[in-house]
């Protein structure tokens, strides 16, 4: 007599592969490399940069900016992240020629040499990277391989260093504090650890060889939760009210 109540998992190998890829990122396992999550922790103390090239930090010298995107509506980068924000913009000279709507991150050539750090007012330290393969979501550039995120772990705000960026696997982390790990090929999704939200992603625009930060989606650690970043929006509130007007079933 058999009582087989199993065998209800996914049936296609392709679906399995996609899950495997997600899991690969989650646990740091690179197909065929055996370089697993635990190895990533073991190497924490003697870590060599996983990106192929040394990390670079974007200059904030606005005079290097060439051209730029069109002026954009006020529902963009700085208003969103700075809604009611406290003072962040201190100590830097204002360039009368810069636009209020974007920040230059660097050039594609610079990114090809390795991840680049940059600062976003209201968001803090961020990084941009050029992945070896197109991002599954959120990538920019001709091949959708350029991504950018906040470096602050959304768990408790620990900064994660550029040496935690792996442009081959899309792994970012683990955070030195509590080992949260993120997938920068998939919108900064947390795939292991303790953060209650995913990494804040910086939306980019590529113009020629220049990469600009134009918008933050999601919430960087420390910023104020708003209806644009909350998972519960006024629309849901209205839907709840509508439902409550009926009977529960």
């Amino acid at each position, binding site marked *: 007599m058999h009582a087989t109540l199993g065998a209800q998992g996914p049936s296609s190998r392709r679906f399995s592969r996609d899950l495997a890829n997600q899991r690969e990122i989650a646990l740091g396992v690179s197909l065929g490399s055996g370089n697993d999550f635990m190895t990533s922790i*073991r190497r924490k103390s003697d870590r060599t940069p996983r990106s192929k090239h040394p990390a670079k930090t974007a200059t904030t010298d606005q005079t290097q900016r060439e051209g730029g995107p069109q002026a954009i509506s006020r529902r963009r980068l700085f208003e969103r992240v700075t809604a009611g924000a406290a003072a962040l913009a201190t100590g830097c000279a204002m360039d009368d020629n810069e636009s209020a709507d974007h920040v230059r991150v660097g050039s594609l050539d610079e990114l090809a040499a390795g991840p680049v750090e940059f600062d976003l007012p209201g968001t803090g330290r961020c990084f941009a990277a050029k992945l070896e393969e197109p991002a599954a979501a959120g990538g920019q550039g001709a091949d959708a391989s350029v991504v950018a995120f906040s470096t602050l772990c959304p768990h408790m705000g620990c900064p994660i260093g550029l040496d935690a960026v792996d442009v081959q696997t899309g792994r970012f982390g683990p955070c030195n504090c*509590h*080992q949260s790990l993120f997938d920068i090929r998939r919108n900064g999704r947390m795939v292991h650890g303790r953060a209650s939200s995913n990494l804040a992603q910086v939306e980019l625009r590529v113009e020629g060889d220049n990469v600009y930060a134009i918008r933050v989606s999601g919430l960087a650690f420390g910023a104020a939760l708003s209806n644009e970043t909350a998972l519960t929006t006024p629309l849901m509130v209205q839907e709840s009210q509508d439902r409550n007007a009926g009977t529960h079933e």
Partner: protein
Amino acid sequence: MSKNDRLNMDRRRFARLALTGAATVPLARVATARAESDGDNPRLFIPPVGAEELTSACAFCIVGCGYRIYRWPVEDEPGGPKAADNALGVDFPTTAMPWISPNQHNVVEVGGRLHHVVVVPDWKATVVNPFGDHSLGGTLARRLYSAGDELKHDRLLRPQLRLGDELRPIEWDEAIEIAARVGRHVVDTDGPRALGLKTYTYQFYENTYAITKLAFEAIKTPCWAPHDQPRSGPSTPGLSVAGIDAFSAGYSDWRDADTVCLSGVAVYEARGVLFDNWVKLLPDADAGPRLVDDEDKPVKTLVVINPRRDVAAQWAEDHGGIHLQLLPGTDTVLNNAIARVILEQGWHDQAFIEEHVVDEDELEVEKETNALREAYGMDFAQWSEMVLSDDRYALDQAEQITGVAATDIERAAALLAQPRRDESGETRRPRASFMLEKGNYWSHNFPNSASLASLGLLCGAGNRPGQMISRGGGHQRGMMRAAPYPTDASPHTLEGRPAGLNLDQWVIEGNLRLAWAIGCTWAGGGTASAGPLFVRMRQLTRETGPQLDKSIAYPAGPDGGLDVEAVIDALIARADAGGMVMIQQDIYPQDLTLLADLVLPATSWGEGTFTRMQGERRLRYYSQITDAPGEARDDWAIVAAIAQRMGYAGFDWSSSAEIFEEAAAVSGGTQAYGALVEHARAQGRSAHEVLAERGTDGYQCPLRLEDGAVIETPRFHDAVLAAQTGGERGAFGTSTGKAVFARGDWDDVVERQELLQPRDGELWVINRRDSRTWSAMVEDRRIRHRMEQMPDNLLEVSPQDAAALGLADGDSIKVRCDAVTDPTLAPVRGMSGEFSAILEITDRMMPGVTCAYFNFGGSVAHAANNVVSNTTDPINGMYSFKLGRGRIEPA
């Protein structure tokens, strides 16, 4: 633009420019620059000044991190980003807690009105989760029921009655009447053993008190089992024999140990804040000079015993400790082998043993008072003789049996017991603490826990700061027994000793007429050989007549009203015919819902006011945050209503607070909180109210009153306290107040190990927790952030095994065990079990050993327990959940 122009512009444009990161502007100007842009204002969800503030503790693991909750009506203006304008007193953006992440906010109903609610880790905490560290509880707000959340569309909101394949909503009064009348009938007809309950032990004192009052005091049925055991009984009997309470340690003891031995504990994965904030930290300076390494740096080391290389194992290896990656089930040999090295080297704490462990005469006294101790208790001379004379505990044979290298066994012994130099230059024995969890005692339950307890005593652990023996804990401690379990009513024995009734066996044999499951995945993670049990349950419920249908329940048509009497008659007829009626009392549907005749909607965390205890015995108040969803009721209220309808007295509570005060009289041991109730009554207040004022600190039990003040207990077994009170407090849990060596011997294991050993192409299939999920994943499947992280069940396999099987990473596989059931249980004899998963190749598993998540989705189809034998161990009658086996095949 001139500087003057800049200063004169309107504040909106000013804000944009200021925040490019390149402005030299006065802080005050920027601070006032809210993005009020013509109606496109991103409305903030910061708690306003005056928002209601509550406290609670996490719904999930044993650590029970503290949380602060803020709620305010959706119509109210939200708080502002300045500290003076919000309830948190924080300037946004903030680099410290409390940062409110998107998943820490929700919209819920309070008093019938929609409210914003945020649930943030208590950043002011100095106990348990200092500075607001947290794990899964970071998404507690999303756990709350919100009618607008599509992921919670299947929340149980009304009582339902099964009519064929359909579950039909009915009224509460009808449901209570049906449950009570059927229950009354089966007890009157076939006795108390015809009615059984399978219930949680974690979901708050008030609920479990009501459940056990009905089961043990009123009905007096022995047919009760907790969610994770087949019968009532101790989880760690080895500790019980030793006289050690499983939760005697305080969290500071893990921190202040020089070396912590983790036996079968996934400490990062399943109780992560305990690991990060206590276990892995260096001892506090107040604990005395710390041991140092060769470079004179203070050290903290871990000895991790686990077949799987988990996060703590890796941390141990990285920080001067060691991972003992043993073969499943061989813990007893390993523990005794380590002990043998310690004995042979003379590193054991002889002074401790002489003072705090029974001698020969005292042992005889203990044997007379406790049947298990009579069989397995030893004094030091007997126990050390056993360890030193048995060659299986010598290094060469131990290496062969356990798979752990002899040099590693020696290293572990040295880390635990070899005297070393400390910061003061003195040489002293390490302070070693010992933590065990299910990898230890859900393997070979008694011998593993006994051998670890004895190893700890040998090292001088048990009743001193930084030198304790305790469980890490799994879920929080919400079990409050209203009366003792009626062991006398149980027909089952173990080694001739009275024992709890094996409820799963009782069901399989067809002895139960009414099965009442409260808040657990009984035929999933809650049993072994889950598939066969589910099949048998289905035979007794859905495949045994009569079955209800609309013609019986609504003889006058759908508008004619439910014919309650006809329903009761039909269900009673099934019970009388040898079938079973099932009641499922829960918050969401699960596999049991497919079988249940009655489905009763219950409340959960945040939907009522409750209390329970966490891992270092802190008793906390869990605030009600939202209205009960739909018509859901507290479990205690449902049980009380049914009990009263069955004719039992003493269930007329009007609030959970009343139950808490009544239960104080029976709260004992580590859970004693009667002093709190006395203290509250002296003030003319309720105990709930007084406890709520303690917020996330709670009270560390047991409690006593001294000069009108409530006194807490940092450490349950405490040598100093015992000396001060003449053994009245702080002593070990024995009649002499001294500990007892417990005989954990391979002789008591070898036969069962042989029974459970993989064969015929099978591999070991152990199972684990995961930091991304909680238990049966009831919440995880309904919180998007959590769903994303673990979309499928995973089976970890070594590269060598995968290659031999011809399987690749990511393959869809099934794990199958033929004849997984107890051959003496005729109805399920010969049944096989299987579960599905995705293969993950990883070198954190050794060849021959695979590992699955233990209870994926709470579903029978994915339960790792499908390949665990439902035979039980001969000493304590528990399943060996961690010792599954099976063949791995492509799906």
